[in-house]
C-alpha cells in the first residue's frame, strides 16, 4: 500500500516529465481536463488538472466534477507515475478501471507512454 506522500512524490516526478516533454505538450493542445484518481485500497482521492497543455500540481480530494475518473490501488498509482507500470496492461486485466470518454482515456494513456519514451 503506497502512502499519500509517496503518490504525491511520484506524481511530482511525472508532472515534471510531462510538462517538459515537447511532444506531449503538442498532444495536449486543446485538451483541458479534470481527472480524478481514486485509490481503492486507501480510499484516498486526488485531482489532476490539465490546462493549457500543462499539468497542475496534484491536489487532495475530488470536489470538482471530473472528465475522467481513474480507479486503481495506491501502489499502482505510485508505480504508474514513476513509469514502472504500463497502465494499459492493468486496464486490460481489469485492475485499473476508468470512467470517461474513450478519447480522454486515450490521451491519458498517451501521457503515461510518451512521458517515458526515452527510457
Amino acid at each position, binding site marked *: *500500500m503506497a502512502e499519500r506522500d509517496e503518490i504525491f512524490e511520484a506524481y511530482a516526478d511525472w508532472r515534471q516529465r510531462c510538462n517538459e516533454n515537447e511532444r506531449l505538450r503538442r498532444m495536449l493542445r486543446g485538451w483541458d481536463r479534470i481527472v480524478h484518481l481514486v485509490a481503492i485500497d486507501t480510499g484516498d482521492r486526488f485531482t489532476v488538472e490539465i490546462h493549457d497543455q500543462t499539468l497542475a500540481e496534484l491536489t487532495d480530494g475530488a470536489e470538482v466534477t471530473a472528465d475522467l475518473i481513474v480507479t486503481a490501488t495506491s501502489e499502482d498509482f505510485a508505480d504508474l507515475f514513476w513509469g514502472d507500470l*504500463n497502465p*494499459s496492461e492493468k486496464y486490460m486485466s481489469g485492475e485499473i478501471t476508468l*470512467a470517461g470518454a*474513450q478519447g480522454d*482515456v*486515450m490521451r491519458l494513456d*498517451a501521457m503515461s507512454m510518451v512521458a517515458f519514451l526515452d527510457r
Partner: protein
Amino acid sequence: MSEPETGATGAGLRRALGLRTVVSTSTGLAFAALEYLAAAGLAGDSAWIAVVTAGILALLAWGCFSELNGMFPTAAAIRLYMKRSMDDRIALTITLSYLMTIVLVIAADAFIVGTAIAHVLGQPTWAAVPIIAVLLGLAVTSNLRGVKVAGGVQDVATYAVLALTTVVAVTALIRSHRALRFPLTPLHGHHPGDLLEAVALGVFLFSAFEWVTTNAEEVRRPRDIHRGMLIALAVLVVVCSLITVAMSHVLDHRQLGSAYPQLALGRAAFGQGGLWLMAAVTAVTAVNTFIGGFITASRFIYATAREGSLPPVLARLNDRAVPWVPVVALGVLSLVVSLVVEATGSWEVLVAVGASLEAMIYAVAAFCVIRLRSRLPDQARPFRLAAPRLLGVTGIVVFGVLAATASVSVANRFNPVPLVVIALAGTGSALYVLVALPRVQAKAEAVRAARGRRRPPRAPASGPGEPGPEAVPSGP
C-alpha cells in the same frame, strides 16, 4: 431477465452519454450501408419472418452481452471475459479473427457507397474504384486528425437515416398497389434450408449492435447500455423488416441482385428524387460506419498492442494521440478488400463471412456466460441472464449452427468460399498467437528488465516493533 440498479460507472462525469445516444450508437453501428444488400438477399414477402426470428435470436445475444458488460463495464470487456473463460491464446485468436468483421463492414460500405455514387452520377462501374479510394482516404485522414462526430450530431444522423429508410420503404409498398404475396408462409416455394440461411443472414442485420458495450465507461447510468441495446434491436427489427419486405415486393430480380437495391427502392417510392435521397442516406450510413468502425477497431488494436499482445508498432501515436498505424492499416486493408469485391462482384461472400463471424461471436458470448457463472460465481452481475444454462447452451447451439450454415452458403447455394476466408483469417490469427506473440512478449520483457525500476526504495521501518512498509526493489 432481471435488471437491477447498480452504481454508475460514469456518474459525476462532466460528459456522459445518455440512453438516447446509446440507442443511436448501437443502432448506427449495426445499420451500415451493407444492411440494404443483406436485406435484399432475403427473398419473398414473408422474409420479415426471418428478420423477426433473427431478432428474437439476437435477444439471446443481447442477454449474454448485457450480463458480460455488467460484469466488465469497460472497453476492454471482450478481452477480459474471454481470457477468464478460456485459454488466453484461444481468446486472442478469436478476438483477432472477429476484428475482421469490422474490416469487412468498412470495406463493404466503401464498395456500396462507391458503386451507388457512380450509378447516381451515371458513371460506368469502374468509376466506383477512385470513389472508393477517395472515400477511404477521407475516412483515414479524418481519423488521423482526430475528427469525432459529436453525440448530438450522431443521434440526428442515425435517427434521420432510420426515419427516411422507413418512409421510403412504406411509400414504395403503398405505391406498388399490389397486395403482399404469401406474407405468412416463409416456406412457400422455399426449402427449409433456405429459411435457415435467411435467419443466418437476418442475424447479420443486427451485427455490431453489441459494440456499444465499448462505451460502457462513458454512460451516465450503466443500465443504459443493456436498455439501449434492447431498444436498438427493436428499432432494427422494425426497420429491417420493412425494407426487406418492401425490396422483395417492389424490386425485380436484377435490382435485388445489384449493389444498390436501396436506390431502386428510393426511385420506386419518390422517383428520381427518391434515388438521390437514398444515395444521401447511404452516404450518411457509410460515414457512421467509417467513423465508428475506424475508432472502435483502431483503439482496440492500440490497447491490445499496449497490453503486449500485438507488436508495439501498433501502439504508435501521432501528435493528436491517434494510433496512426492501426488507422492506416485498417484503411489499406479495407481498400484492398473493397477493390477485390468490386473486381469480382462478390459482395454476397462478404455478407456470408460477416454473418458467420457474427453468429460465431454470439455463440462465444453464450459460452462465456456459462463458463463465468461457474468460474466467477461471486462476481457482481448487475444484469443476470435468466436460466443461463438453458439459454446459454441454446445460444451456443443455435448460433453455432447459423455460423456453420452462413459459412457454406452464398445466395441460397452451397459455396465454401466464406468458410475458406474465415479459415484463413483464423489460421493467420492462430499462427500469430502461437508463433509470433511469444517473441513479441519476450522482447517486451527483455526491454522492461533492462530498464529496471525508477521508483525509489522505501525508507526502513521507523522503530522496533512498528510494522514498516515493505521494501520496493529498485532497478539500475
